[in-house]
């Protein structure tokens, strides 16, 4: 069932969804059709999804779809918050395939169809805390990453999971100026990856993912800063050693491998004690592990999360 919380009729409901999500894409599509008659951009995400409710969901008010789709960090499509909503239409999400390989008994190459069939879809309303001190509440749709990992049967050598985003310098023209390396890479420790909160999201707000939010599927790790939740995944590799991660390579003292939300550990350039929930005027206190400490704090027992494993 589709769970819609907001009874108010928003622009998102009045305007046809495609036009609403990306006005420029509409214009671009028109010009392509006029110009070359070569293919239009791929049919965009936006298919209705059926998902069961989850006990992991928060009851906090949802961030509006407009903000979730027009305030994005997806540096491949530009570094301004609104750039991805303007440029991400260039991402071809179909056909799509993801390689799952490495320390596994059954390596696989999955297409979109196969991905959607890995496990029953659930709606998970999670808090999302960006390292830049803003946060949202997002009704994701997806399934636990562990459902996929169990399918490929990790071997004893699988200690970490490395993820890789799609990268195409021809369509991601702005990426040359982003100042970080591409393809974007991220990683989790095995127990983090297997944790029931760790989600592979294929949709939000009752529909499949908009491109700017990481279509066709992405990681969501709600107790870590947003940049850990890698978008538009094409490769998942189970490995023995801690894999390199993009922001850590860019500034090792600012972005650690773990990057758990932690008000006690400042980003060297700003305090992480507070955050602004998008739509709020005042800042609110940031909660350790983004409020998921009851479920995940035990993963880090005895680890120095301030100086060493930040």
């Amino acid at each position, binding site marked *: 069932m589709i769970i819609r919380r907001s009874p108010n009729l928003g622009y998102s409901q009045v305007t046809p969804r495609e036009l609403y999500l990306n006005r420029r894409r509409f214009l671009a599509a028109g010009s392509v059709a006029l110009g070359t008659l070569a293919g239009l951009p791929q049919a965009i995400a936006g298919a209705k999804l059926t998902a069961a409710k989850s006990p992991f969901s928060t009851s906090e008010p949802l961030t509006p779809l407009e903000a979730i789709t027009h305030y994005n960090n997806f540096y491949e499509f530009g570094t301004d*918050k609104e750039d991805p909503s303007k440029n991400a239409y260039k991402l071809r999400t179909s056909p799509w395939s993801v390689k799952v390989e490495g320390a596994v008994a059954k390596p696989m190459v999955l297409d979109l169809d196969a991905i959607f069939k890995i496990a029953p879809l659930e709606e998970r309303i999670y808090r999302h805390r960006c390292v830049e001190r803003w946060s949202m509440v997002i009704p994701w749709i997806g399934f636990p990453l562990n459902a996929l990992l169990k399918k490929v049967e990790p071997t004893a050598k699988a200690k970490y999971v490395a993820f890789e985003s799609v990268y195409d310098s021809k369509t991601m023209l702005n990426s040359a100026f982003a100042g970080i390396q591409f393809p974007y890479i991220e990683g989790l420790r095995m127990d983090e990856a297997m944790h029931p909160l760790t989600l592979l999201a294929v949709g939000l707000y009752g529909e499949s993912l908009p491109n700017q939010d990481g279509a066709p599927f992405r990681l969501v790790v709600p107790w870590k800063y947003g940049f850990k939740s890698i978008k538009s995944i094409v490769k998942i590799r189970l490995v023995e050693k801690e894999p390199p991660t993009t922001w850590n390579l860019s500034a090792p003292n600012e972005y650690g491998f773990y990057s758990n939300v932690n008000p006690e550990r400042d980003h060297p350039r700003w305090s992480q004690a507070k955050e602004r929930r998008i739509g709020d005027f005042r800042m609110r206190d940031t909660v350790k592990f983004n409020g998921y400490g009851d479920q995940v704090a035990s993963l880090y027992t005895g680890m120095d999360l301030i100086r060493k494993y930040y």
Partner: protein
Amino acid sequence: MHTALSSRWTKALLFLLCLVPLFLLGWRYYHNQLGANPIESITHKTGDWTIRFLLITLCVTPLRKLLNQPQLARFRRMLGLFAFFYGCLHLTTWVWLDKFFDVHEMWRDVLKRRFITVGMTGFVLMIPLAVTSTAGWVRRLGFVRWQRLHRLVYFSALAGVIHYYWLVKSDVRLPLFYAGILALLLLYRLPGWLNTKHPAPAPKQARNTN
């Protein structure tokens, strides 16, 4: 050209023009056009305009000399004061909308975060310049001393650009662009500074008609 530049109306027009960024910001805020995080947007835009007005102010003297338009100096003080004005707005967004007047927290940030340290330095350096921008203060200090004091503006602009460079996460194009312009403006002045035996004559306009 000459008469247009010396007209009162030109100055009034420029004054209104300098208020356009503020007007646009207010308009967009009112019409919900500042995106999902309007406070962040206001902070960035007022900061941007502070640096821009500092650079515009530093353009006046080179333009005056290169175009041989001494009347241009009439606008320098106003442009500089607008840099201070946008700097005040920028600081206000931080003091109010980010720190909510938590003095302890602000002081900690100033001491601890180098991008805030340098940004605050840039702002503080502008205060004596704004205060002594009147003709009365030029007289009181004497032009030579007044001019020496107002060289602080170079450090203020430099601090502004460094503040911006240290603040961005990874895309440094815009801070580098501002740094490039500042470098050109400083390079233009370099021969004059090296050649201290023959200091550039003070522009008469700065002394009286301002």
